[in-house]
């Protein structure tokens, strides 16, 4: 029987990992991921989880130990955040290039300098090109559910690609919510033990992490790229089976909320979506037609979903908790690229927000929607703006 528990995002994710029964865990503590590794250590120490926990001395070793473990065909988990993810940088394409289905939890946190332990997405956005699948969750329940789904997805023979599950630091990792915990037997049926021939074994010895010269290097990359073509279908299949078994699903690469007949749509990533949903409800109650599109996966990117937005949409805003300095938020770049691929001309605007844990209020979001309702101004005006900046804007403009 499933039961309900009041858990933080970190705790919920750790519990999801426990239900997924990884054979090997290699992780190094970093705020705000720490509770995940503490809970997993507890489960192993108490015998509630039969897993080899490797107490690595750094994140670089965590990801490379995970590579070694996954290369043996063992279900493998690691977790990190921010500076730790950056320290792992070298290992990320090692794992994805080798096509080993490691699952990682990343607690999204700002990157130094100025250093900060608080939330934004500058850490994971640096690694959109790392070959990992990236998914961002909205609440503790989705965190737990995606811990389980991530292993199923990564290990699917059509996928064989590592998955990074991103949780917003503190606002999600350290916030307690009601979470429904699935029954272990049901999880076991949904996620059977990982079986693969894609591994080193004494019966069939392999050379792993091979080198490929200029003559054939591009062909290997070509395959890696095109394998992503199949991932959306696999994600859809897994999510609908999950919904069937556990009564909860999250859609595929993205989720549209009240986008039907919407004039303005705001794109979100992660836990900010909840507040945006409430603003949408408030505005809809006032007869204002707005919607929100939650981008769950950034790799693979929900290009088709974005292009499927109704014709009623006259302006799109993007909430970017990250910034490619000197240019724009990275989600914005990707959204515009999707629109361009589909030859859809909709005015767009980037809203840089929440950097280093800056609060984003419902009033902030409301003002963004009101601005988006004037598509002509969006078309003509500044494309990149900052939300809730603690500066006197007037002085800035005059100065």
């Amino acid at each position, binding site marked *: 029987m499933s039961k309900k528990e009041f858990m933080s995002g970190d705790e919920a994710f750790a519990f999801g990992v426990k239900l997924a029964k990884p*054979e*090997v865990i*290699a992780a190094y503590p970093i705020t705000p991921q720490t509770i995940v590794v503490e809970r997993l250590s507890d489960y192993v120490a108490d015998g509630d989880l039969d*897993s*080899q926990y*490797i*107490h*690595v*001395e*750094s994140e*670089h*070793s*965590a990801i*490379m*130990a*995970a*590579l*070694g*473990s*996954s*290369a*043996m*065909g*063992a279900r*493998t988990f690691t977790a990190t955040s921010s500076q730790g993810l950056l320290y792992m940088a*070298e*290992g990320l394409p*090692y794992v994805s290039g080798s096509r080993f289905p490691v699952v990682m939890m990343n607690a999204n946190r700002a990157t130094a300098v100025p250093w900060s332990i608080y939330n934004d997405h500058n850490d994971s956005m640096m690694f959109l090109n790392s070959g990992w699948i990236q998914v961002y969750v909205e609440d503790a329940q989705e965190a737990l559910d995606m811990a389980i789904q991530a292993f199923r997805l990564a290990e699917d023979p059509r996928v064989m690609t590592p998955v990074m599950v991103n949780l917003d630091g503190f606002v999600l990792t350290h916030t307690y919510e009601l979470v429904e915990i699935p029954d272990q037997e049901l999880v076991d049926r949904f996620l059977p033990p990982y079986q693969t021939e894609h591994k*080193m*074994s*004494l019966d069939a*010895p*392999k*050379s*792993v*992490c*091979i*080198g*490929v*010269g200029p003559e*054939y290097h591009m062909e290997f990359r070509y395959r890696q790229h095109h394998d992503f073509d199949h991932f959306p279908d696999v994600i859809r299949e897994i999510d609908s089976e999950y919904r069937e078994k556990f009564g909860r699903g999250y859609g595929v690469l993205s989720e549209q909320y009240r986008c039907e007949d919407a004039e303005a749509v705001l794109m979100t990533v992660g836990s900010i979506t909840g507040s945006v949903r409430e603003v949408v409800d408030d505005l809809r109650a006032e007869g204002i037609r707005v919607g929100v599109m939650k981008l769950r996966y950034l790799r693979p990117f929900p290009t088709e979903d974005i292009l499927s937005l109704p014709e009623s949409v006259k302006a799109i805003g993007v909430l970017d908790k990250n910034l490619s300095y000197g240019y724009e938020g990275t989600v914005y770049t990707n959204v515009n690229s999707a629109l361009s691929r589909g030859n859809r001309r909709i005015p767009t605007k980037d809203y840089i927000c929440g950097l280093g844990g800056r609060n984003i209020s419902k009033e902030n979001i409301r003002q963004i929607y009101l601005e988006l309702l004037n598509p002509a101004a969006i078309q003509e005006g500044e494309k990149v703006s900052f939300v809730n900046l603690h500066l006197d804007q007037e002085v800035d403009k005059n100065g």
Partner: protein
Amino acid sequence: MAENKKMTLNNLPEEELFFGHKACPGCGGSLTLRLVMKVLGPNTFVVVPANCMSAVSFYYPAMNFGCNALASAFPCTAATMSGIEAAARAKKLEDYTVVGFAGDGGTADIGLQALSGAIDRNDRIIYICYDNEAYMNTGVQESGLTPFGAKTTTSPAGKVQHGKLTHKKNLFDIITAHGIPYAATASVGYPQDLINKVAKAKACQGTSFLHIMAPCPTGWSVPIDSTVSVAKEAVECGLWYLAEYENGEYKLNKDPKEFTPVGDYIRKQGRFKHLNEDEIREIERQRDATWVRIHEKW
């Protein structure tokens, strides 16, 4: 068990587990690998970080290891081995060995942190540092194990700076300071001694570490047939030593009554060609100090 029968040069298994690779002729590193793999056998998981040994043996589509092998990132030979070992434990594998081959830079410089972590966990892995005293794969740059005075492409024999300015890191002491179950130094100049130590490491239940002197004719500027003889001379003149650390005790496997002249060893190698008499005397002084310490401490 086959391990019970002592392995000698005469009864080494015929199977070649590291073969057909593209290493330079006379490579001390590949000789090290070949000999070690003879002892460890086919049920071995090998980790090689970015170095000559991985560069010459993982180049698609040719694969030169006959057993399982993984070409890992430079800083984390030990961590990758730990991951393999943990997975083998999780899968309840029996009768296997996990070994890593990193060079001097891969061990004493960039790989030291991960190695220290693995020894701390006492994972059942064999870490082998094949020491050719510089970053040879990238074209002979100075490492922490490059000896005093040696010329490399980043410690040139210039007008004001004469090769490497500092002495060779004392890696063996760094490792034994961890209280590791088994550590030893060895040399390709002494194959039987090397084989004996690999057999001990294979039987060790925790982390074991072998520091093997493996000359690189290219980087040392010596003839390609002198890899083994120059390795022997390093031991004979006292600049390298054969020792073990087991159960907290040090043991010298060879304790020369007197050393051959350092100058004879030095002058044969192009990398030391620029050194003057004072600098050679400095190398001798360092050697003597090392041996005083060895005799006092061990």
